[in-house]
């Protein structure tokens, strides 16, 4: 365990990762101030946490460390633990419900967990394919993708993927699908070996 912690402390790009969590904290403050805008601020908060998770696999010296005796799969499995940081930030905000926004906590925990898992899995998959800094591209794309459903909710009669109050079964099914996809991507990415 101490070896893993030692590696995480030195190997992870903590600055952008914690920066994303910091931005999430700022948006949580805005949410407390303007709870009526939760329909957009909550997805923006999720975008920050998901963007932070995208940096979990950034490693400038990847071509070197990928061929060390310890192995790439050990490295990827260890780095997956880093996603607990943005995940904890998200879980904490949902638990605290800033501005008394009526989040249905289990649903919103699922929503955040599914997104972070999918993003971390995608970053791990890119790392497996020897992309040294997947976060640089993945983080902004994920931030945009996390907020995009808000525009659709206003235009279409499908309902929102970010329900404030009741959490309909259909929305839960969608997020369960995202969570399963994330788990599948992680499983593929964490297989032993490299696939350049």
């Amino acid at each position: 365990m101490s070896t893993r912690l030692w590696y995480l402390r030195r190997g992870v790009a903590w600055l952008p990762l914690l920066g994303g969590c910091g931005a999430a904290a700022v948006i949580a403050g805005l949410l407390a101030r303007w709870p009526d805008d939760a329909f957009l601020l909550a997805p923006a908060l999720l975008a920050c946490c998901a963007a932070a998770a995208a940096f979990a696999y950034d490693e400038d010296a990847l071509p070197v460390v990928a061929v060390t005796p310890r192995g790439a799969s050990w490295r990827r499995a260890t780095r997956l633990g880093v996603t607990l940081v943005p995940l904890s930030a998200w879980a904490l905000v949902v638990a605290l419900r800033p501005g008394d926004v009526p989040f249905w906590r289990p649903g919103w925990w699922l929503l955040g967990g599914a997104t972070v898992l999918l993003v971390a899995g995608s970053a791990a998959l890119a790392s497996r394919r020897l992309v040294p800094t997947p976060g640089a591209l993945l983080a902004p794309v994920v931030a945009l993708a996390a907020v995009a459903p808000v525009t659709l909710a206003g235009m279409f009669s499908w309902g929102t993927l970010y329900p404030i109050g009741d959490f309909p079964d259909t929305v839960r099914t969608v997020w369960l699908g995202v969570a399963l996809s994330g788990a599948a991507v992680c499983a593929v990415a964490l297989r032993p070996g490299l696939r350049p």
Partner: protein
Amino acid sequence: MSSLSMPASGIAGHRAMAVIEARRMARHPVFVLGVALGFVVLGLYVVLVGDETGIPVVLTLPLLGAFYIGLASVIAAALLTRSTEVAVETIATAPGTEARRTLALAAAGIPPLVAGLVFSVALVVLAKVIGVAPQEWWFGTLPDWQVWSIVLMCPVACFDGALLGVLAGRWLRFRGASAMVVVALIVVSLLGTPLLETGSSEWRLWVPWAIFHTGDNPDGTQTLIAGNPAAYLGYLLALGALAVLGAMWHDRTARTPRFRILVAAVAAAALAFFVLAATTGNHDNRVSDPIPSRVTG
């Protein structure tokens, strides 16, 4: 080899550099994805949401183009700007200054501008072909210049998105800067909404994307928010110019007295356009006649 045969200075050299940057933008996967999503969502809206009166709330649809194409352009332009940093020492030995390269990078805004224009033209053509409800805020119920100004906010926002990306790429060196810029842009644009229902709704226009149309109200009416959309369009263009100048400001050698005067002049123009947008045009929010098929409550 083509770069070696390129004129090192003058208009021809700058044009060649600008064409290269515009091409890089047009081929960037994030930009292409954003454009594709923008048009797919517009197509889905036209197919799925239209009723017997035609396309509903047409004047809200420029938001789709601005969101998908514009925000994707922020990301793509920031990545393009940062992409040359790995070879900064090599580039520094080439003829030309950083400010000149930044100015060429501003041409990366051309593909988003064109995509936004195509989006707007498609919107107007679709509304013409399929039709809109007679009570809808559109040509016929609004002066043409107001409709065109609101529709053209889409290409201008797409253009500005790329310029903001260049600005972010030049100044923000931490990883994930473009992600933070995208989120900040969305949050800042949201900050204008608390004013929508107040008597001071025109002061919301300081934000980089202000809405002029609320969509359908529960009683079937639509609200047109106060303000002058043509002047707001000028404000957006001035913000884009400020973004380019701000990116060029990164090069210390560019900060000549003439350049400083130019920056001050553009900032003053942006302020003037903002004041014009807030104090002219529609002074109060206007409510349309109800559209019977859209009454929901």
